[in-house]
């Protein structure tokens, strides 16, 4: 497979993953751009085509942490109202809840849902055990459920007053 095809296939999910790591649009773009240049340099050494996706995600992850060490505090955080149509209420509420979720929970979720990785693959990417990855995924969903239902309850209270 050509490197350009690989990038084109995964660019959107890599951007979204980078966004959930950085919580910043500009930073996510920069991370992906830098990561793809690094990936291009390493591409000739990639022997297993099947491992290409997790390889790209791991490069984005490394690049994020490398750049995060030298970047300014987050700014330009995505505005929910500007990205969701009014009828996308559940997604909007969920995104709001995801924004409040610690990165240690949001990251494995992004890898699972956006990247389609298994618990074992997520564990390998995060450098942890499969059991620990599964625990983080479970707790992430529990936390999201709490956040979404708390938001709904607050809205209901606001609606009654």
């Amino acid at each position, binding site marked *: 497979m050509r490197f*350009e095809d690989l*990038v084109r296939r995964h660019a959107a999910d890599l951007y979204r993953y980078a966004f959930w790591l950085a919580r910043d649009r500009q930073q996510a773009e920069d991370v992906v751009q830098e990561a793809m240049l690094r990936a291009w340099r390493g591409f000739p050494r990639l022997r297993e085509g099947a491992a290409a996706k997790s390889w790209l995600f791991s490069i984005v992850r490394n690049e994020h942490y490398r750049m995060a060490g030298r970047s300014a505090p987050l700014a330009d955080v995505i505005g929910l109202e500007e990205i969701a149509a009014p009828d996308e209420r559940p997604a909007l509420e969920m995104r709001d809840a995801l924004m409040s979720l610690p990165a240690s929970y949001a990251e494995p979720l992004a890898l699972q849902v*956006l990247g389609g990785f298994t618990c074992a693959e997520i564990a390998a990417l995060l450098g942890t055990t499969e059991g620990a990855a599964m625990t983080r*995924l479970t707790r992430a*969903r529990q936390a999201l459920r709490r956040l979404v239902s708390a938001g709904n309850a607050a809205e209901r209270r606001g609606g009654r007053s």
Partner: protein
Amino acid sequence: MNCLDYRRALLAGEGESAEMKVHRLQCAACIEVWREHADFEAALRQGLEVPVPPGFEAAVASSLVQRRRRFLAAAAVSVLAIGVGTYAWLGREDPLALASIDFVMKEEAKSIMMGAMPRDDAAIVLADSLPLERIEGIGRIAHIRPCPFNGATAYHVVLAVPQGKVTLLVMPGFALKSGQHAAHEGLHAVVTPLVKGSVGVVGSDAGVVNSVAGALGA
């Protein structure tokens, strides 16, 4: 599988296994949990799928092309710089080094006529500048002869090292502050300062010449 196992497995998000499906189809409460979970997962996916900036994929591809060009250009400049540096080194014609090459090309045949020196005599005359033991530490001395060189006496040594043969020109009367290099007619020469005088190393392989000169240097 019981209801607790089923709900725990759903929360981990790995999808519904055959065993889980069997439980769900037999449990009205878990059917309801499964429906609610499916809605939750759909919303989760939508929530995570933040909008990608318009034209992002093209921008990444375009940036990649530009940066690759810059990267390759920078790499080419580095290669060029190394080449120019090597050429400058090889192209140097320091006088004493060039004279050493001339000696090997023109005078070596004449010096042969003067005959070889006994080893003990050579050890005495070279003791202050380049002890024979030091030369023998890096190769086998084929022969040593005294020879006229630039108005003084130098000592011409043919030295066999593992990579081939080099000629040494030990010049007790020619002191140097720093090394000299020359390349001419396919031969390379490096002249290195010694405690007393200097030694020229001449050979056809620049790497071997450098290596021997480095080993002999003061």
